[in-house]
């Protein structure tokens, strides 16, 4: 019986993931990302709940531990109450984006708990705390004009954080990235991402002269260099690309984009020559199987996992993704692909891309230049990080060792991702409220016209 149940739930999960993505697509096709899409939102939530129930019941039955049932219930309560609470406090929040967020966190819980139950508890606590804090943060961004004007403060704080890591941070696997305060380990470069996005959005929003644009470029370059010297090249690249696209959209200057890409390519070549660990990763990318014993070990194990899972996956707890070193942080996507299948993994990518689209399209209709740039920066920051980690794990690009936002294990990473999305929700809420008022005004006009017409009719009769 157990076999039947796990097999059926495996295919059901894939099917539900596809349905969820279809709703995302329908939402995108419907256009205007404003107002109500209650049908889509409710259906998505049903799929989400079903996936969680199927996955955790499978894990519970397969591994014979009731803890999984308990975790499943807890995570449903927290995640669902978050979206409900969000809608109660901020009625005009983007509900599909909120759904995507809890969907990704939910899949993260499933996979992390399957890899290491204790880590899930820690992750669960961090997610819960982050969501509570983020609800406040969302409110804070209704005062976005004041935050914009503080961009210089943000620029300084962000840079200070990165420099502090550079000087005081622990070295882990050749990169200085973590930092301990009172026994808790942080990855400050994760938090610096949010600060960086706010800084560049604010700075470009008020930059009216060319020299000011140049000045922003210089400060942004300092961020990137600080990361390069910490040997955190993955994040350096993320900061660089984010900056490049915000610069491009703020200035509408195509030359910047092209020059930026050329500069990036040049910098990559220099990094390849300068840093041995970059060379190692490029070589492992080009021919992992000949170096399967050392440099290629991680990536080949990841490829084994993906190829073995096939399109429908091995079934939860039936694969061996734990063979991949750092699977819960850097290779979570491969673990998803092995146990839930490549189709579900592609659906996961689609959910990420859907979130990116929602942020980008909300940026198009936002009335504030600062908010527009903030949304664009967040969107690019997010999607590029997804690209780096997923592409690295499937040998599409060389490995960089960054996390998959929301899904990967890692307190700083998931907290930053939640904060980033909730900040975006904050500026979306402000704009949606504005648009809603305008819409009401328009409707009032038409009602007046309609009543005029009525009166005319009356007089005629």
């Amino acid at each position, binding site marked *: 019986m157990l076999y*039947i149940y796990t097999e059926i739930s495996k295919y059901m999960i894939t099917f539900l993931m596809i349905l969820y993505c279809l709703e995302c697509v329908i939402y995108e096709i419907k256009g205007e990302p404003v107002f109500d899409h209650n049908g889509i939102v409710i259906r998505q939530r049903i799929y989400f709940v079903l996936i969680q129930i199927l996955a955790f019941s499978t894990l519970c039955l397969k591994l014979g531990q009731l803890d999984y049932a308990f975790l499943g219930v807890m995570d449903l309560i927290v995640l669902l109450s978050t979206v409900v609470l969000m809608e109660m406090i901020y009625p005009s929040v983007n509900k599909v984006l909120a759904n995507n967020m809890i969907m990704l966190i939910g899949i993260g819980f499933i996979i992390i708990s399957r890899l290491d139950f204790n880590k899930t508890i820690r992750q669960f606590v961090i997610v819960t705390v982050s969501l509570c804090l983020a609800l406040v943060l969302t409110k804070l961004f209704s005062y976005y004009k004041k935050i914009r004007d503080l961009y210089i403060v943000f620029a300084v704080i962000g840079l200070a954080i990165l420099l502090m890591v550079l000087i005081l941070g622990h070295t882990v696997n050749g990169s200085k990235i973590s930092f301990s305060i009172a026994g808790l380990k942080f990855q400050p470069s994760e938090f610096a991402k949010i600060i960086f996005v706010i800084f560049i959005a604010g700075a470009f929003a008020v930059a009216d002269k060319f020299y000011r644009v140049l000045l922003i470029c210089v400060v942004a370059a300092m961020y990137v260099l600080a990361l390069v010297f910490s040997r955190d090249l993955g994040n350096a690249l993320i900061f660089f690309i984010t900056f490049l*696209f915000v610069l491009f*959209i703020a200035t509408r200057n195509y030359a910047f984009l092209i020059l930026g890409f050329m500069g990036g390519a040049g910098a990559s070549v220099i990094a390849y020559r300068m840093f041995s660990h970059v060379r190692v990763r490029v070589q492992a990318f080009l021919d992992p199987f000949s170096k399967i014993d050392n440099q290629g070990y991680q990536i080949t194990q990841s490829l084994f996992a993906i*190829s073995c899972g096939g399109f429908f996956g091995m079934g939860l707890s039936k*694969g*061996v993704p734990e063979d991949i070193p750092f699977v819960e942080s850097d290779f979570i996507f491969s673990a998803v692909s092995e146990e839930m299948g490549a189709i579900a993994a592609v659906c996961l990518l689609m959910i990420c891309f859907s979130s990116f689209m929602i942020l980008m399209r909300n940026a198009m209709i936002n009335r504030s230049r600062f908010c527009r740039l903030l949304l664009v920066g967040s969107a*690019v920051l997010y999607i590029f990080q997804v*690209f780096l980690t997923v*592409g690295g794990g499937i040998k599409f690009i060389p490995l960089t060792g960054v996390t998959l936002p929301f899904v990967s294990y890692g307190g700083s990473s998931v907290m930053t991702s939640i904060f980033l999305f909730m900040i975006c929700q904050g500026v979306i809420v402000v704009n949606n409220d504005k648009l809603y008022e305008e819409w009401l005004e328009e409707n009032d006009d038409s009602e007046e016209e309609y009543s005029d017409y009525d009166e005319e009719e009356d007089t005629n009769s």
Partner: protein
Amino acid sequence: MTKKRIRTVENWITIVFFGLIFLSMSIYLCIYVKNNEQTLIGNSYNSRQKLLARENIRGRIYDSDGNLLAETLTNEAGEEYRSYPYHNLYAHAVGFSNHGTTGIESMAGFYLINSDISLNEKMENDMAGRKNPGNNVYTTFDTDLQNVASDALGVCKGAVIVTEVKTGRILAMVSKPDFDPNTIPENWNAYVNNPQMSVLLNRTTQGLYPPGSTFKIITSLEYLRENPTALQDYTYTCNGKYVDEAENIDISCYHGSVHGKLDFVGSFAKSCNSSFANIGMSLDKDKFGNTLNGLLFNSGLPIEYNYSQSDLKVDSKTSDYDMAQISIGQGDAIITPIHLNLITSAIANKGVMMKPRVIDRVTDGNGKVIKTYADETEKRVMSEDEAKALSLMMEAVVLNGTGRKLQNDHYTAAGKTGSAEFNGNKEDAHAWFTGFAPVDDPEISVTIIVEGIGSGGDYAVPIARRIFNCYYGID
């Protein structure tokens, strides 16, 4: 009211940019999964084989007549073990899976450890607490031929490979010394610690030998390409030696024979070293290099067994001294028996090289066929005329040359012998034979090497005779 339109072109460019990246990444992922689901599971670094072994019993391997070559049994203690009923006979061809995997066990590993029985049956097995039977693999091997080949080699070191010319199916593959795959786990260290015997080496695909006179097939092919009328025009008078003092070349015929006046076919049939040194000196080195590459020297072979790469580079920088040595198959040239068999089969198959294969079909535990393998053409390696000319010359070897021991009333045969000297010692020679039968419409090709025993005509041809006799049912 007036709505301020915000320019969105740049946003759309950004969306499309990342959209394309994600689209290509998704497609890449799907293609990767589709292409590598089978290949990567065989990798010994992949721990997922063990995972499937928990659910499925490794499938059986059969020969082409349905004789069982390998199966998984359970001993009294309830432990599974792999059984090989033919013991040493298929040591290298089928390989083993009880200490890493080799041979068929490795290349068909994906099928053997997966079970394609219906979901219904899987559920029944699940309820009953039974494992599912893995898929079974039917190979192309013919146990009669395999037995004859193994017996004929006897205690000598060497290799025999028998291939169906038109299909590329490998009928027999024997490498000696061999081992009993049933006892591999116990004897592993003893084998590994005795590199001189190299018991684990599959000599048919991994053994690199100087080709000796069998290489004259290739020298002849190149000479025919450069001189299409050579069959009629060429003459040479052999006085037992080819000497070129300027280049310090001094080549003598095998056992000091003096062949006298020879034409092209005669030079080949008698395997006259002097004549072939003479031919070799006239060849265009660059063209010869291209011919060699066209015959898959210095490159990969289209086989799934672990193999060594035959190595021989010739270009304009090659010295005349080396050219003379290479032309008679000495010098730096090294070749694997399977590679020589591929070339021989291509000659027999009118110049078209078939991709060798060892698996006919895969069935599920109930015998339902789930995959069949078709014959595949690798490429044309020579023209039909060239193949015909070489075939004629190889027939002459049997009719009035070094392969006379193959003459009989039942079938015609063609081939080339070789005695590859090694250690620079005239007395130590590997005996080669490569050839096919029947001449008019070839069916099978045979390649044989016996290490360090003497001349091919004396020691390898009789083995070929026994194999051909077995194939044609002659006692």
